[in-house]
């Protein structure tokens, strides 16, 4: 099982490398034709960020794609594997490739990339995993992840302004990022886990009641809180 999932994760990883592979061509194109004077290191930096973004979402969103495409859920659930073993076999190789890619990016771009964006990549990765059980299309999953990112971003601003008021400004942004990500990921993770632990080969739409019962109120509450806060605390105040 693990070997198959490593192979699946590697496939997604290679597909996500398109942005990086294109960089020498973009650089050559600029040198020979457009002559805009693009800096190779900046291009590489952008390439790594884009690749990390693509892989974070793509690896998570395609967690169950082989089962859906191959109609293999029945086979998967007939194997003597616990749900925890199945999830670990699926998530760990993908997380491994994400860390590998982030490590390579750190070597090329520098530590500041991961310091600033590490939490975002993890947020995107896990939120796309948690959405993958209830959202079947990769494109819709991408929209969902986009919405989660917007909520995260707004939440981070709100939490950091609270921390500033409390005089906790030294690591304020980082702590705000962690809190904001946790507030989003914990309910989504619980919804995913409770659903996956009970799921069987019935049509998936019949099995998402618990999932939607947690995810939808969470989204409504968080968006409402952000809107309410934004009205009482206009930007710049």
């Amino acid at each position, binding site marked *: *099982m693990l070997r198959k999932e490593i192979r699946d994760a590697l496939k997604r990883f290679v597909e996500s490398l398109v942005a990086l592979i294109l960089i020498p061509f973009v650089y050559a194109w600029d040198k020979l034709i457009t002559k805009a004077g693009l800096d190779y290191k900046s291009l590489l930096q952008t390439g790594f960020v884009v690749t990390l973004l693509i892989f974070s979402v793509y690896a998570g969103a395609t967690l169950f794609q082989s089962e859906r495409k191959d109609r*293999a859920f*029945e086979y998967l*659930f007939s194997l003597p*594997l616990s749900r925890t073993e199945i999830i670990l076999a699926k998530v760990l190789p993908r997380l491994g490739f994400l860390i590998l890619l982030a490590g390579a990016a750190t070597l090329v771009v520098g530590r500041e990339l991961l310091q600033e964006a590490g939490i975002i990549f993890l947020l995107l990765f896990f939120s796309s995993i948690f959405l993958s059980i209830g959202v079947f299309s990769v494109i819709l999953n991408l929209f969902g992840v986009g919405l989660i990112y917007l909520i995260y971003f707004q939440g981070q601003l709100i939490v950091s302004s609270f921390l500033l008021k409390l005089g906790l400004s030294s690591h304020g942004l980082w702590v705000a990022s962690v809190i904001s990500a946790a507030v989003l990921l914990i309910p989504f993770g619980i919804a995913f886990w409770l659903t996956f632990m009970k799921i069987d*080969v019935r049509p998936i739409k019949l099995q998402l009641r618990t999932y939607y019962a947690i995810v939808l109120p969470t989204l409504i509450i968080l968006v409402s809180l952000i809107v309410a806060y934004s009205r009482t605390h206009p930007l710049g105040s």
Partner: protein
Amino acid sequence: MIDIAGLSFSYGKTRVFKDFNLSIPDGQVCLITGINGVGKSTLLRLMAGVLRPDKGAIRFDARLGPDPRRKIGFISDSLSLYESLTVSEAIALHKSAYGLPAIDDALIRHTKIGSGQKVRELSIGQRTILHLELVLSLAPEVFLIDEIIHSIDAYLRRIFLEQIVQLLAKRRLTVVMVNVNFHDIEHLVERVILLKSGEIAVDETIDALKAKVKKVSSRSAPDSLYVLSRIDYEDHSDFFVYPFHEGLRGTLGGEIRDLNLTEIVSAFIGGEYA
């Protein structure tokens, strides 16, 4: 022993089983049959653990261990496998998931299935044989077989059934089959269960069932007979009678005939169990 107690299961608002109970002793070859949509395949999937009961429990003999799936061979009508894998990759995955030291691929070689072929490129018959090979590798204690064997050609079906006969000869294997066509499995079956609306309508050994269901050909059926279904001809009618008892022989005009399993089940289904 397979012990199903208080089982309830539904697909959304469609209830399939409510407080369903069934016990299948070790080593019994049991046939589950009935009209379409009564829950035959669902029951098999529940036993295989790929569907989860809403209520109730399905328990297996303790010798199957803490995870009975290790000793349950399940061949479903959907023949679910990772279709994008090659045959050898599918075998390797199965081997590692069950922690098997090796898988004998004699059947696959015998039926000329290429190890480099993708599973999705295999015919239904070839996929069935691949499934059978994977299931046999587990040395199963319980074998659950859905209707799929009727979709495969006569040659592969013969291979399939020979394997089951060999397996039954070697040890006490519990077999649960879901079927509506029995001409080549009748000699294997010990017990017949007919489902109707998620409940057991008939539960008999095959010998008892054959003794109790007869065809009476006559111009009219005596009132005392309980007729499952009938076929009318110009000069007479065939009455499928259940339950028949030997005391009736002298009282009935016309010919009384024994039926094979296919005819018996057809008689039940023809009258939707009357």
